[in-house]
C-alpha cells in the first residue's frame, strides 16, 4: 500500500465505530469512485470543520453564535434543558415536545476518566441563569455518571431561585411491559402518577 493510502486508512480508523477493516473498505471505495466524489467530500469536510463551532451560549453545534435555537424569538426563554451531548439535543428537538432553550454539557462528570466540572460546559450554565430562566430541566442519562452529574448540578442550582427538575424514566411509549428490564420497571413504579 502506498504511503498516501496508508495515511488515509489511519485517519479513517480514528472515526467512531470504524476499525481496521472498515477503514480499508472506505478508502478503497473512495479511491475507486469517480474522483469528483472524493473532492466534494473533502470540500464539505473542510468547510464544515471551519464554519461549524459550538455555540458560545448553549454549546450546540452551529455556524453562528448564538445558534439558530438560541436566536429563535419563538423559543420559551424561561425553560432550560440540560443535556449531555449534541445528539441528545437533536433527539429532543426531533420529538417537537420541547419549546425552550438548551444547554449542552459535552459530557458527564467522571473523575475516573479525569472529567471534573472544569472539563465540562458547566460554568457558562450559571451565567445564563440571571435572565428569564425559571426552570432548569436535567435530561441526563440514567447511569451512575449521569446521576452524580445531576446531583451536582442540583446542588449548585438550588440556591439560585430556579426550579430544578429531572426528566422521568420508565416504560417506553409503545413498549411492552414484559420486555422492560427490572431497573426501569422499578423506577416506573416508584415514579407513578395519579390519574
Amino acid at each position, binding site marked *: 500500500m502506498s504511503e498516501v493510502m496508508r495515511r488515509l486508512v489511519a485517519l479513517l480508523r480514528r472515526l467512531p465505530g470504524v476499525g481496521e477493516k472498515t477503514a480499508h473498505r472506505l478508502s478503497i471505495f473512495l479511491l475507486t469512485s469517480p474522483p469528483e466524489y472524493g473532492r466534494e467530500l473533502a470540500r464539505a469536510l473542510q468547510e464544515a470543520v471551519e464554519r461549524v463551532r459550538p455555540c458560545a451560549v448553549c454549546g450546540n453545534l452551529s455556524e453562528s453564535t448564538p445558534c439558530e435555537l438560541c436566536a429563535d424569538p419563538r423559543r420559551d426563554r424561561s425553560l432550560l434543558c440540560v443535556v449531555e451531548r449534541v445528539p441528545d439535543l437533536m433527539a429532543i428537538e426531533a420529538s417537537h415536545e420541547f419549546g425552550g432553550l438548551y444547554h449542552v454539557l459535552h459530557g458527564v462528570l467522571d473523575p*475516573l476518566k479525569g472529567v*471534573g466540572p472544569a472539563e465540562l460546559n458547566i460554568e457558562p450554565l450559571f451565567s445564563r441563569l440571571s435572565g428569564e430562566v425559571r426552570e432548569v430541566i436535567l435530561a441526563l442519562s440514567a447511569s451512575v455518571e449521569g446521576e*452524580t452529574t445531576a*446531583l451536582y448540578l442540583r*446542588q449548585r442550582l438550588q440556591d439560585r431561585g430556579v426550579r430544578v427538575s429531572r426528566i422521568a424514566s420508565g416504560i417506553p411509549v409503545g413498549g411492552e411491559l414484559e420486555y422492560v428490564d427490572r431497573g426501569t420497571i*422499578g423506577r416506573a413504579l416508584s415514579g407513578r402518577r395519579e390519574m
Partner: protein
Amino acid sequence: MFITEIRTRNFRNLADEKVEFFDGINVLTGNNAQGKTSVLEAISILGNLHSFRTRRLREVIRFGEKNSDIFGKFTRSGVEDELLIRIDGLGRRIIRSGKQVKDIAEVLGCFPVSSFSPDDIDIIKGGSLVRRRFLDKGCITLFRHFFENHRAYYKALLSRNRIIKTQGVPEDDLLKSYESVMAVSGIELTKMRRSLVNILRTSIRRKNFLENKGAIVDIKYKSGIYSEKDVAGDEDEYRRLLFDKRSIDFQRGFTTIGPHRDDFVIMIDGHPAREFASQGQKRLLAISMLLSLIEETRKAENTPVLLLDDVSSELDSKNRRELYNELSRIGGQILLTTTDSSLYEEIEIPIRIYHVETGRCTIKMERNI
C-alpha cells in the same frame, strides 16, 4: 439441577471419554496427579466459564494441542440442556444445544456450580476481601437490587477517592454528589449483607457437626460504616459521617468508612475462630459457611452442583463421618475428590464411587438406599 455427563477433548490429562454422573454424591478417588481435580475443573468451567485453578483458561489445553473442548449435559426438572465450551489460544466459544452463545449473560447462572477447595479456608484465615466476596456471591442470588447497588457504590467510591487524591481542595458540591450516591447505595449494601449474615448465623448454628458437639458458633457482621454500633443506619446519618470524615480522608488519601470495609467475624465459643480454632476446626467452619450459603441461596435459585476438592484431608475420621452425613442431608448433586474412599464405602448413604487413574474414570462401586 444436576450434571448427567461430561466429555472432554484435549483437556489436561483427562482421557477423551464420556463420564456419567448420578444425581447424588459422586466420589472421585485415586492417587495424586491422576486427574481427579481436572474432572471438577472441567465442570466448574462449564458452570462458571472460568476455572478455580487458573486465571488463564488456555492452560487447560493438553500440551502440544491447539484447542480443547468440554461438553456437558445437564438436567433441570426433567429438561435436558447441553453446553459445549471450546477453548483455544485466544479465548473460548460457548455453544448451547448446538447454537453459539454471543452474550455470556445468557448462560451465566443457568448452570450453577459452586466449588470448594483447600484454599477456601481463607474465609477464616484470610483478609476481609475474601469474606466480602463470599457475602456478595450470596447477596447476588438472594437480593434483586444487589448488583445495581454494588456497581453504583463502588463507582461513586472510586470517584470520590480519585477526587480526594488529585485535587488539593476538593469542591464541596462535587464531593457531596458522590457522597449522596454512596449513602443511598451503601446503606442498601449494608442492609443486604447484614441480613445475609443473620441468615447464615441461624443456618450455621443448626449444623452441629463441628468438633466437640458443644462448640457454639456465631457470626458477627462488622459494618464498615459504623465501627461499634450494630444498627441499620440511615442515609442522612451516613452522609453526615462521610462529611465528618473528610479531613481524615484527605490526609490518608482515600475513603476510610463505608461498605468497602465491611467484614464479619466467625466466633467459636465466644472467641474469634481466626485465632482460636484449630486447623481442622477452621476447615470445618469454612465448609459449614459454604454449605450454609448454598442451602440458603438455593431457595431463591436452582440448586447448584457442589464441587468439593480434597476437603476432608485435614479431618479426623469422626469429623469426616459427620461431614458426609451433613452432605447427604443437604442433598443435591455433589462431586468430591479424595485419596481415601474407605469411609465412603462403609457409611450408609447413596453414593457412587469412581476410581480415577491416568485420566480415566471407572465406576468402582455404587450404592442406592
